[in-house]
């Protein structure tokens, strides 16, 4: 299981849960499962987000997630 940390305002779509457990081996699988279990997250995830695994920004959706990894969803980051 992988714990995905959401920002609080997304808890509207997850019945109040700030951390959602998913069974996923890759980032893409994790995101897919999130939307399957909580369809309200779909538009947010489609709008563009950043995924951070164990402190590292992971742009590649095929990146593997090790069991027990800490996964954060954040607003999309770039710079000036």
């Amino acid at each position, binding site marked *: 299981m992988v714990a995905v940390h959401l920002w609080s305002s997304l808890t509207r779509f997850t019945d109040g849960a700030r951390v959602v457990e998913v069974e996923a081996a890759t980032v893409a699988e994790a995101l897919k499962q999130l939307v399957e279990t909580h369809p309200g997250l779909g538009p*947010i995830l489609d*709008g563009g987000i950043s995924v951070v695994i*164990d*402190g*590292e*920004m992971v742009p590649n959706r095929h990146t593997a997630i090790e069991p027990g990894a800490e996964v954060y969803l954040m607003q999309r*980051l770039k*710079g*000036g």
Partner: protein
Amino acid sequence: MAKDEFREFKLVGTRPDRPDGLDKVTGRARYGADISAPGMLWGAVVRSPHAHARIVSIDPSKALALDGVKAVVTRADFPEGLTGEDWNLQENTIAGERALYDGHAVAAVAATSKLLAEEAARLIAVEYEVLPHVIDVDDAIKPDAPVIRAGAADASVPEGMPPNVVRYMDFGRGDVEAGFAEADLVMERSYKTEATHQGYIEPHACLGQLGADGKGEMWVCTQGQWYIRKMCTAVLGLDASQLRVTPSEIGGGFGGKTTIFMEPLSLALSRKAGGKPVKIVMSRSEVLRATGPTASASMDVKIGLKKDGTITAARAEFRMQGGAFPGAPVDMALYCCFAPYNLTNVAHVGYDVLANRPKCAAYRAPGSPMGAFAVESLLDEMCRALKIDPLQMRLKNAVKEGDKSSYGPRFGSIGLIETLEATQAHPNLSIKLGPNQGRGIAAGYWFNHNGETSVSLAISEDGTAQVSVGTPDIGGSRASIALMTAETLGIGYEDVRVNVVETGALGVNEPTHGSRATFASGKAAVIAAGHAIKEMCRRAATEWGIEPEAVEWVNGAAQPAGPNAGKHPPMTIAEIAGKMGQTGGPISGHHESVPEGVGASFGCHVVDVEVDPETGRTTILRYLVVQDAGRAIHPAYVEGQYQGGAAQGIGWALNEAYIYDDKGRLANPVFLDYRIPVASDLPMIDTVIVEVPNPGHPYGVRGVGETGITPPLPAIANAIEDAVGVRMAHLPMSPATVLAALKARG
């Protein structure tokens, strides 16, 4: 490649002349407006004089009647049906039903000369029905504010929020109320910052050409040629690969040249004028009225502090307007504002609000300076109240590797503590201050960014190398990429030429933004050089009849790796390259990725000011920037980033602001009244480069471009309080506002 291979450097860390220096001191370098084409037309843009107005009609007949006027375009010349950010870009390029801000493009015209195009633009008659407007973020967020765009809110906005709120976010951890209860002092303050402009000296300029067959070319000053391609083709409904975009030299960007403004207009005009190239060069007033200012912000911060300096809890609520479109960097502001501190209880709330202003663009560490202004100001005020040394307080709470960031994920290798310690050790901190003088300190943070990156390297016949990168060189990145490439290949710095290439020459690259050029293109160039080295080792191995694994690359030559590989004299890169036609063909390397391993950069600034108590004027006496660079590849250009960021922050703190009149028109769209710092406003800017190498980069690079703009805003506010005892909570801290605060205190 093991990191430790590069502990001893021949080139990295030296300060050679930049490769484009000669062109840039002789006037030869070609910027956006410096190119012309045979048969070229000039374009000019008609802009709304109203902050908010329905466009009733556009009559171009008088303009078209002039000899030499070749085309006029309006929104009707653009495809319908776009959605999301594509629609936003199209709407910002040229207004549809309504003009949404003063300066919003409404029509454009192409003619045979610049003067004629300007005259024709004046003759295009636009009838407007003026609508109510709103400028200030605190007004725009009111429930009864004029509605900029119904239905613009995204899924993040809960039901029942005011109509101009288009994005909402809240996040955090712990229990802030419990944290406040533990504190010896809890303070809550409100802060405001006004919109500022990146203020690059080169106005936007492009030369676009588009045929009826949908094939086009563009020469343009931009931070990212692929972004120009993607955005222009989206707005015009073209296939991306059919547009070839060549970046000119770029006269500054700071984030403001990562998007499109009049570029699609030049293409649309060209297509309508039978494919003749059309050049559009913005005036300064167009730049200020219609291109990327940053957001303005209204912020509430509450912090709990113990007498021993421990932060027990922190809460931030930020409201930002980023113009008439979603995208104010309120998320980034929240992520960065508490980032230097190791917090257990923290909460963030953010609102992205629409107003009748130009669409904000990225500006150096977007959002971070505003958030830092609020948080670092409040912390300073609280340290003052509890008589705690502000630097010690920061050291006590500073984040280190493995700590959970205020916004969630854990930090990798970071150098905040090293940065604060270097600050503490600096002689500027022990200089005694006189009357009406004060010292201010503040920390700042920026994540840094990676982004899509594609680099190609080729070994020439004589053993020199060329590197093609997709990230325009704004501040010396050619030099740093050449240094890293030459270091890797074991050849001279002068033996490498770094070319910034057009979209046809490489895979997709994100712009030079997010402090990523030296990190991302540099990392890709080093990896590409590694591929070329591997190939050269293979060629030598074949020549020698040994296994490729038995060859190593040392000092620019292949040599047998140990005695078992046989006795062969080293084969230099020039020898291998000279024979490449007979040994298998061209030798090159390339790399494409979104490189992982971005290293964040913390900084700490210390400023000494003097305030004239009779006029409220603040003079910067001394300025110190301390920042973690990971490793400085070309230290002079790292210092340049630090100094330039500080100067922009000083301008933002003291005098820069978008000023609107009561009709919502920008009152100061010229450099005379949009007051960026001039040479006589500033002292020398002292720098300390802290080097905590980033393990995610072969030479340890962290991006350094952005962090430096963040601390000056609060550092100067803190210094002003230290000097004359007034706390400025609204930027800019212009003489009039400081004098008013002094008078109010009595």
